């Protein structure tokens, strides 16, 4: 890996809801090299968006720190710090103000950060639009006149307006049709090569991870359960949760089917139970061992592939309530 651009050290976030505490992140370490794409995958409630919010400075960590280019970022970001990180969100229908023109949307970061003279502004916005494959004249239009794919390009242009080094991509293609998704993936790849951008790519869609990212972090209930090189994790998933995720990918060819791990769907449990200690996936895992209930899971293994599963290869250890019901 090249020198790290972004380092996350022991990041934790606890939300207080009334008298209850919700531990959204329970201590995450992560390092993203310059020019690299790291994917963070996990389901809703895994903490992936909270992690992104800490990186962006939208939330303050309860513990730990965020380091950008060797400098720890404080909870209150200076303008200069904010310029370094751009954000592209999931739904381009709700992230662009329908009453503002495309030019106003892209121009806002330019004026907030005093990045260009008023006389230069139109030209600069046009330049940004061209960079994402749109016509410069589109700046006079409103979002309503644009398709979903075009809107997402505008959102990317806006994120690039401040010349950031790091882009946080939060499900950038999830709300788009597949044929449009392919366009956006291409664009992101091209921009990265052209501008040397670093991507923190947040998604629940593993098939997209394969084409965009070099490294992947799998999260479950606020903890990293597996991380490593994408090719490595996809071909030999170790943690049971990663295995289930990969087994869930809806594939379109027999060739792809063969790469999916087996998963005992018949033994599956849909549990919302949240456990304080031990492996967070334990309540849903058909392979859980008694030892899975103890302590905090620790990531172990070679540097290019770490995981925190105590029973990655063993046999099923218990029947699901479903199987028990069937046996009655």
């Amino acid at each position, binding site marked *: 890996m090249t020198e790290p651009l972004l380092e996350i050290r022991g990041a934790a976030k606890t939300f207080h809801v009334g008298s209850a505490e919700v531990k959204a992140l329970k201590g995450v370490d992560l390092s993203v090299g310059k020019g690299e794409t790291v994917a963070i995958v996990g389901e809703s409630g895994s903490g992936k968006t909270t992690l992104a919010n800490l990186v962006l400075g939208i939330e303050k960590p309860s513990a730990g720190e965020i380091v950008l280019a060797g400098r720890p970022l404080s909870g209150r970001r200076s303008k200069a710090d904010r310029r370094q990180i751009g954000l592209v969100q999931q739904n381009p229908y709700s992230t662009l103000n329908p009453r503002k023109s495309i030019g106003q949307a892209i121009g806002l970061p330019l004026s907030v950060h005093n990045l260009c003279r008023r006389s230069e502004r139109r030209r600069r916005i046009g330049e940004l639009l061209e960079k994402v494959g749109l016509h410069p004249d589109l700046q006079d239009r409103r979002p309503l006149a644009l398709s979903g794919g075009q809107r997402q390009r505008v959102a990317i242009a806006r994120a690039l307006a401040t010349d950031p080094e790091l882009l946080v991509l939060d499900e950038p293609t999830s709300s788009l049709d*597949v044929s449009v998704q392919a366009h956006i993936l291409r664009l992101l790849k091209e921009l990265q090569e052209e501008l040397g951008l670093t991507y923190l790519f947040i998604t*629940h869609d*593993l098939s997209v991870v*394969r084409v965009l990212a070099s490294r992947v972090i799998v999260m479950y209930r606020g903890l990293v359960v597996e991380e490593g090189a994408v090719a490595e994790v996809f071909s030999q998933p170790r943690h049971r949760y990663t295995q289930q995720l990969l087994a*869930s990918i*809806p*594939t379109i060819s027999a060739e792809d089917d063969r790469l999916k791990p087996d998963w005992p*769907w018949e033994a599956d449990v*849909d549990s*919302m139970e949240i456990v304080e200690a031990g492996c967070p996936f334990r309540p849903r895992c058909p392979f859980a061992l008694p030892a899975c209930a103890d302590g905090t899971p620790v990531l172990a293994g070679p540097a290019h592939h770490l995981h925190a599963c105590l029973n990655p290869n063993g046999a099923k250890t218990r029947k699901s309530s479903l199987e028990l019901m069937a046996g009655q």
Partner: protein
Amino acid sequence: MHELLHISNLNLTFETHDGPVHVLHGVDLSVGAGERVALVGESGSGKSVTARAIMGLLPDRRVRIAGRIGFEGADILREPPARTKARRGRDITMIFQDPMAALNPVFKIRQQFTAVLDRVDRRLTGQEAEEHMRAALRDVSIVDPGRVLDSYSFQLSGGLNQRVMIAMALASRPKLLIADEPGTALDVTVQQQTLNIMGNLSQAYGTAILFISHNLGVVRKFADRVCVMYAGRIVESAPTDALFADPRHPYTRALLASVPRLSSDRLPEPIEGSVPDLSKLAEGCPFRPRCQLSRPECDAPVPMRRDAGRSVACIHEASAA
């Protein structure tokens, strides 16, 4: 196979302030008893409108509809509305994309489920209804039906809500279940679980499913037959295995090429151009402006080529066959 639903030459136009928009164009579709048929297509292709037309859920005003929607001999478009209404929720039921949005958050699951049962059989006593609901929830692998019935939708996980929806939709043992993007709003692992449950149960009850989805992978796993829609038309229809092994319409091929593969880290191929404006669509193949094989002949109306259980609306296919 006994034919349950038979749609022929369905045309549908929305009257808008900017003029008519032709949303469906000569749609032919049939679903056999117990069969699972998928309608796939991108946003705006007309798949959800087709479902609504079958359910009789389209508004009367500003909609012009022509053709025939046959269901067990009856013509849904020509029968008295009361007949359609009586069928809805009993012989034909529907599951929607987001279970959280489909369930009402201010009523407990029990109240909503009771209302569903009321449509199925009015004569059920309270005790019978309760037993019926508990059994239906156990069928969708809910271990503690009592707790679920006592809950509001917001107290349950997305997966549990989806199972409740499945239990409600199958409570009347319908002949046809229309599933509109089921589970798309859920996490992948949960979506997989609920699809498994829905598949197993519908098979056990002999319920046919019209499965509407934009996700080709989900369709491949779930359907017996796939109809690909584009710009309000069915452009290709084939048994699932045949369609994925040998897609024939250029749009089907392009759509498959745009899906990221697990077996490759190559970027998927986007489809150039954009979906046509349905209010300005001319005769001929709607995919023509984006198609690499397009020829002047593509401007003429495209005949549907049928052979061996497959049909394709492409002149290239016709000349090759």
